[in-house]
């Protein structure tokens, strides 16, 4: 099983990426209004999906830790959050790159992009907390609490930024995808990034588990010379 995942995940990821890249860059037609610039959507949207999946995984793993004290869950939460932050960063960068030729600005206050920026900082805070706490039990408990608080904020942030921005001129991220080839390219790339997420998270999970093994050793067995235990 392990071997299948070790080989299969990156194989799927790269495979889908190549096919998706060909379809997205070469086969799918240029967009009606934006020309070829729109193609960044093939990274931007999958990154957004991937980040959301990653953060949701962190939330679920955090809940599992709080209720079951499962160290595996804590490792999953940590790994998934890290990969999620990377995907979130990609989302922001591609959003910014798209905005420049389209609107002439490096940053738009588009609700989705703005929410993504806030979430980026929120989860960077989560990772910082994990860095600054040494005791494993406390680190896991506090990180789980913070993950829940942050995740619950996502819809609130979304609504507030939408309202806030609706009062200004709305400059939106790439949106409509009518052509079937475009849809295909999007799906291929989305799955490609999903497999990258799974692959990276799994590798990071193993590192986290190894570290846990060092930190959470069993207490030393009693030597026969010491009496006392019945």
């Amino acid at each position, binding site marked *: 099983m392990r071997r299948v995942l070790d080989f299969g995940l990156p194989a799927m990821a790269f495979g889908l990426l190549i096919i998706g890249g060909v379809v997205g860059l070469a086969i799918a037609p240029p967009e009606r209004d934006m020309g070829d610039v729109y193609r960044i959507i093939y990274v931007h949207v999958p990154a957004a999906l991937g980040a959301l999946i990653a953060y949701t995984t962190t939330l679920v793993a955090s809940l599992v830790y709080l209720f079951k004290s499962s160290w595996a869950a804590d490792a999953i939460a940590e790994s998934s959050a890290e990969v999620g932050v990377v995907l979130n960063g990609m989302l922001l960068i591609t959003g910014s790159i798209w905005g420049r030729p389209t609107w002439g600005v490096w940053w738009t206050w588009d609700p989705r992009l703005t929410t993504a920026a806030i979430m980026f900082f929120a989860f*960077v805070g989560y990772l*910082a*907390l994990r860095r600054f706490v040494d005791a494993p039990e406390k680190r896991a408990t506090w990180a789980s609490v*913070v993950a829940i*608080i942050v995740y619950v904020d996502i819809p*609130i942030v979304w609504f*507030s*930024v939408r*309202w*806030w921005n609706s009062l200004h001129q709305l400059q939106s991220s790439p949106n409509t995808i009518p052509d079937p080839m475009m849809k295909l390219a999007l799906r291929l790339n989305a799955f490609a990034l999903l497999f990258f997420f799974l692959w990276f998270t799994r590798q990071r999970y193993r590192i986290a588990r190894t570290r846990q093994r060092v930190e959470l050793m069993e207490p030393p067995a009693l030597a026969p010379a010491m009496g006392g235990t019945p």
Partner: protein
Amino acid sequence: MNNAAENTAASMSVARTPSTTTERERPRLGLLRATFGIIAKDFLLEWRGRARINATIFFAVLTLLLFSFAVGPHHAILEQNAPGYLWLAIMLASVMSLGESQRVEAENAALEGLRLLALDPRAIYLGKSIVNMLFLMALALVLVPVSIALYGTTIRAGMGPLFSPLLLGTAAISAPGTLYAAIAVQARARDVLLPLLLFPILIPGLLAAVKATSLVLTGDPMGELVSWTMLLGAFNVVYWILCGLLFGRVIEE
């Protein structure tokens, strides 16, 4: 082990009378009274430490001044953005007051002492976050006249309607802030960790509070104030409940 215990029991020369206190009634405090107890204690502590409070207020006023210098003497811009400066000053000062409220508990492990009194952690949370909120309210009430002076804001609708966004906004800061401060006070780099954790999730509250304050000050032609107030209300409901439930896990050892 069995033999050892039996030996010790046998070797005790004096027969031990069972302690009468084991059967004694030990009444437990209800949540409301426990919360009031914490509020009273924190109020007393804040009063005793009022030099520190004064310093925090002066810091917040100084921040307002700094905004004026940073932006420049453009009256129109300053007046328009006054609610933003006001709430930023409150948020920056809150980091100090929230941190201080927890530092007092960490000083002699007093928080552990409270836990060992079999006090409901929710009472500790509610008490501390209410006091934190009231302190921020007091701060806000001081900052409002200062912003009027510095930024030339006028209060068209009177002080009354201003009360609502101030209360909801400071409550919104206090709810997650009290919990995060309890975490930060025990972690390394506590001074940077608290704002780093707190500010991103407060952004919706900040938006709503600034907008609501602005609408109260400059008038509300399209009736948007209700929406922003409801957003602030929802934020408060969600976070007071959520943090109240999670606080126990945060402070246990």
